[in-house]
């Protein structure tokens, strides 16, 4: 117990010192000055992330599930290539393309963020479901589960760990890419970063960047917590040896 506590204590201490140094660097005056902007743009940033992530979750998990069905076994990899190619297009380029179709504003930004978040979710959902022990699937089928019952009661619960990893990667990409959407006129923490760069205001830029990083860490922590709850049955309890 003691070494664990010691390690945790050290970690927290380091984090506190790190935050204090950053705040010191940004300067308390800057935070007070941009207080209203910070709150507003954090809210706008969150909104972009939540909408695009929600859309990516719905489409990504559905596509992953669809591709992992036995009837798709022959063509699943080809479809995955389509997602792969889509993912190699950088968010900047997607922003530009989206701008051509939807014009300036949040819709283009959401579209670009959605696309960026999609692949890790599809890939991990597909892999997670495919890697579920075939014995479990056979047992589910043999006991008389219908395909949907097998998916919901056996396959998805046993793939959550892998799927949640994909969601966390997507979330990190999403939160980190959202500031760029400033360039096409959507509101995000980029509205602090880019003007900071243009006006050579390092404090303002750092404030935006630090807020983005903090947001990414908090959301990732939340996702980790959900993941932990979903896979609680995999805990490390002692195995009792008995005949």
């Amino acid at each position, binding site marked *: 117990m003691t070494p664990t506590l010691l390690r945790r204590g050290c970690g927290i201490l380091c984090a506190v010192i790190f935050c204090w140094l950053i705040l010191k660097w940004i300067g308390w005056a800057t935070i007070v000055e941009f207080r209203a902007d910070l709150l507003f743009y954090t809210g706008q940033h969150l909104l972009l992330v939540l909408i695009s992530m929600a859309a990516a979750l719905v489409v990504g998990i559905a596509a992953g599930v669809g591709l992992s069905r036995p009837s798709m076994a022959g063509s699943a990899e080809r479809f995955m290539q389509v997602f792969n190619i889509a993912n190699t297009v950088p968010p900047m380029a997607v922003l530009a393309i989206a701008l051509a179709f939807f014009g300036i504003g949040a819709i283009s930004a959401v579209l670009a963020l959605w696309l960026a978040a999609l692949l890790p979710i599809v890939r991990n959902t597909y892999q997670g479901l495919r890697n579920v022990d075939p014995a*479990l699937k056979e047992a589910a089928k043999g006991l008389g589960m219908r395909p949907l019952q097998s998916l919901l009661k056996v396959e998805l619960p046993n793939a959550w760990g892998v799927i949640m990893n994909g969601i966390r990667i997507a979330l990190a990409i999403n939160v980190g890419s959202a500031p760029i959407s400033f360039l096409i006129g959507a509101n995000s923490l980029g509205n602090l970063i880019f003007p900071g760069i243009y006006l050579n205001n390092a404090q303002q830029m750092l404030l935006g960047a630090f807020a983005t990083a903090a947001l990414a860490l908090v959301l990732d922590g939340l996702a980790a917590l959900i993941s932990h709850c979903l896979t609680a049955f995999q805990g490390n309890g002692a195995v009792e040896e008995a005949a």
Partner: protein
Amino acid sequence: MIELDALSKVFPTPKGGSGAPAVDNVSLTVQKGELCVFLGPSGCGKTTTLKMINRLIEPSSGRVLIDGNDTAEMDKVELRRSLGYVIQQIGLFPNMTIEQNITVVPRMLGWSAQRMRERARELMAMVALEPGQYLSRYPRELSGGQQQRIGVIRALAADPPLLLMDEPFGAVDPVNRSVIQDEFLQMQRTLGKTVIMVSHDIDEAIKLGDKVALFRSGQLKQFAHPDRLLADPSDEFVRAFVGADHTLKRLLLISAGDAADDSPSSPLGTRVGDARARMEEEDRRYLVISDAAGKGVGFVRRHDLRHVDDATPIDTYLREFSTTAEGGENLRVVLSRMYECNTSWLPVVDDNGLFMGEVTQESIAAYLSTRHGASETSIKAPGAEV
């Protein structure tokens, strides 16, 4: 009762053609309450045949009849819910507690929560696992043997009349396997379930099977009682598969009571003269003595009585049995004990200690040299043959 009628399965080859049949025209009938073992080497079609019964694999041709109903006309899912299914990898769902695992099928059948809870406790008691201790645990917290037991009772949860088992005890270590096999056999006899079990282990088939179906390259080579299989292999393949020691393997199947000869016994108080006369008449060197109730109490040796007066009661010369055989023990155990005690015969006693006859090395040899399998034999004591 379950009937396989000219069942065949041909898997399409990747090129679109059809290869050699995986299962070729298999017909057999398993009676209600019987435990039938599908036996054979890898790739012989035994598992494919089993999976065609619950339609995890659809037959190419032929029919499966359960109590006269063609399974092809039933809903696949309903059919599977009405049959128990156990797989080698056990396949407990790691995301469900033991109780949720056991009640998977009852829940799909819409049982009430109360009924499911009671059923789970009843089943746990059947495999001697403490419900309070285990029901709320997850599968990973149980040992391999415990998981295997849960796998079996999960299949039994909705009380299906027929249980299909695909190498159910293959993943358990040998010591636990033997224990679980014994438990399972006991349970099967008590519940009267019809069981079809796939195995590649001849010893398991002999131990558990009422009938053994031996497969090779998709064909059913022999379908018979295990003793029949060992005593009278139908061809060279069967002979090779059951092993060069197939005659010795039969020892497992024969109980001491069945192999006991009709040796006589004399009551306590018999006079030495009468006993000696009897032994001489039947050409015996010893004679078992029983009490009034028929319990074997010991024996006398002819050698000991050589210079004794005819009128003396025999009781003085009574020797105690060094060891006895229970009527229900198999001959392998009995023979092992005979060698251990360096004796050529053992008195066989039933549950109440009543003398049933003797097992001698001659009587075992006589039994094993017969080919009539499980049918009744009456073995003559050596002296009585003349």
